[in-house]
């Protein structure tokens, strides 16, 4: 679960990592009031989950109330729901810090650079020598000497280094406490006064650890569309597109492959949807989601083991009876108890296919 900047910074503040003074604003009026509190100049930062907010114009520096009003109106008009209004700090230098996981070495990995503010991936390509990596044993945690060594590699100034040591230790403890996939400060400002302060904050919590993390409710704001939000509430993996074919497939790998095959065949996808795994009895709900799209065909492809073919076929037939879909359905249901599935589908007047690529071609043809 990727958090918004303001949430990451709240957590940073709680952990003792310095962040700029800030206020939240949900309207232009709010924003003007908030800016009065933080003082000028200040920064209006759109609280959206997408990356590259700076380039997209979603972060604006403003110097006076007039500028605030103009910028805020503009941002709220762009479907931004929430602004973080932050004091602007005087910047001497920008660093980069993050903690993530190294799947090969099986360690936590701190990545740091004295040249922050840019995309770390670009820096990794263009100037890899400027990136420092520190592996941390996830059972023992970050050792002081590691933080110390890294801090002095980033800055020779003992006053800065000491602040850095503290921030590294706290950032690592956020990583550990919040079961983070990634926690990142980019940029980490060094102000003209020599203070270190987190300019941005990114925190992605591991999905598999959400049940032991408290206080994170998935509201509509975390999703790009109403449909994705609705599907998520059901626990159904769903992505919204605007093509012709609604996918209703089982298995992450197979669904992704069907997505690819449709593109190869010149078709287009209306929605990605998996109803395999724990959801293989949710055919009705899944079809309901597909039908809310403006798609021309629903394509069902499965090849399940535990997600039994007969159960899924019954689900599809049940869904058709209940929802009376207004568009054709292509079915390719295989796996455990396939023979039963075939009977069920034929009895319901469907023509079961057995080859994924054939099913994809048929769905694409039906859209023409």
């Amino acid at each position, binding site marked *: 679960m990727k958090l918004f900047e303001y949430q990451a910074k709240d957590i940073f503040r709680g952990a003792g990592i310095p962040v700029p003074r800030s206020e939240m604003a949900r309207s232009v009026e709010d924003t003007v009031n908030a800016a009065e509190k933080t003082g000028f100049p200040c920064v209006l930062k759109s609280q959206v989950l997408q990356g590259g907010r700076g380039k997209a114009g979603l972060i604006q520096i403003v110097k006076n109330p007039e500028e605030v009003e103009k910028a805020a109106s503009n941002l709220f008009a762009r479907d931004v729901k929430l602004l973080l209004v932050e004091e602007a700090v005087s910047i001497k230098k920008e660093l980069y810090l993050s903690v993530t996981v190294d799947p090969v070495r099986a360690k*936590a990995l701190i990545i740091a650079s004295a040249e922050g503010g840019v995309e770390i991936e670009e820096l990794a390509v263009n100037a890899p020598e400027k990136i420092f990596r520190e592996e941390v044993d996830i059972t023992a945690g970050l050792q002081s000497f590691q933080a110390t060594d890294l801090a002095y590699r980033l800055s020779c100034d003992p006053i800065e280094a000491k602040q850095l040591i503290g921030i590294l230790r706290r950032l690592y403890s956020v990583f550990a406490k919040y079961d983070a996939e990634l926690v990142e400060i980019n940029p980490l400002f060094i102000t003209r006064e020599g203070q270190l302060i987190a300019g941005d904050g990114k925190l992605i919590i591991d999905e598999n650890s959400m049940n032991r993390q408290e206080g994170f409710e998935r509201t509509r704001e975390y999703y790009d569309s109403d449909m994705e939000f609705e599907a998520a509430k059901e626990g159904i993996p769903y992505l919204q597109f605007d093509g012709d074919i609604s996918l209703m497939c089982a298995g992450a790998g197979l669904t992704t492959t069907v997505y690819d095959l449709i593109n190869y065949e010149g078709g287009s996808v209306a929605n990605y949807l998996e109803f395999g795994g724990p959801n293989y009895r949710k055919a009705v709900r899944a079809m309901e989601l597909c039908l809310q799209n403006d798609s021309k065909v629903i394509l069902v492809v499965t090849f399940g083991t535990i997600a039994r073919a007969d159960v899924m076929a019954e689900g599809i037939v049940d869904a058709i009876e209940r929802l009376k879909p207004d568009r054709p359905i292509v079915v390719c249901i295989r796996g455990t108890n396939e023979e039963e599935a075939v009977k069920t589908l034929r009895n319901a007047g469907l023509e079961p296919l057995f080859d994924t690529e054939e099913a994809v071609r048929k769905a694409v043809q039906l859209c023409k």
Partner: protein
Amino acid sequence: MSIFITSDTKVLVQGITGKEGSFWTGHMINLGTNVVCGVTPGKEGQQIEGRRVFNSVRRAVSEFDADASMIFVPPRFTKDAVFEALDSGIKKIVTIADGIPLHEMVQIRAAALSCGAMVIGGNTSGCISPEVAMMGMFPYWIERVYRKGSIGVMTRSGSLTNEVTAMVVRAGFGVSSLIGIGGDPVPGTRFAEMLPLYQNDSETEALVIIGELGGTMEEEVAEAMQQGIFTKPVVAFLGGRTAPKGKRMGHAGAIVTGGKGTVEGKIKALQQSGGVVADRPSKVGELLKEMLDNK
């Protein structure tokens, strides 16, 4: 000889009394797997499929000297179950759990590395050597997919495995040993770490790799091929070629971040190392034929 598991491998089942554990224990035995006993705390004295149940792995191992453990416990107990198996000196572990917390999976892999064990999974169906043995949950009764043969299969995806393997079989081949390393971002064992086993397996003539976008596992395979660690023919199928960047589509491990883990990069790496890449499942069988005919 199959790899990882043979019909002689003494398999212990952790979580044997659970619904999944008991159901698949039956199937594993049915296929020929040498399941020796099982573990569920508090259930010592029970029997499942004629196998004795113990309160702990230590107690089980003190009576049945197991070589391998098949773990059927929920994700949040998996780390402890793996640690328990490692503690008793078991070096081959399969864990099917889908939803193991990321930091715990890192600890699982770290522990396995430090004691020279191999943990397969999580989020996998496990491994199967058709007609020989199975640790996991495969519909081995579907002849169209699990026919015995000479093609090794390594995969990150369960559903796609049935799909692709069916194509291998349709082309006239069969499977020697199939290992699903799982779809999580941190699998216990990585593709490249399985290669020496397939290389040394006389029954495996060629290898099919079912990969996908995200991570660097396919690139590591390419590197091993370049270093001569693996020299048999390789045909790969990679899902997610057209997946939109930055969206999490498919497995948790299947996400491209920071330009790393693109399917294009993987294809290039594999091709440069002598592998061939199928653009659709049906091509896998065809390409295998070509490669083996040209050998």
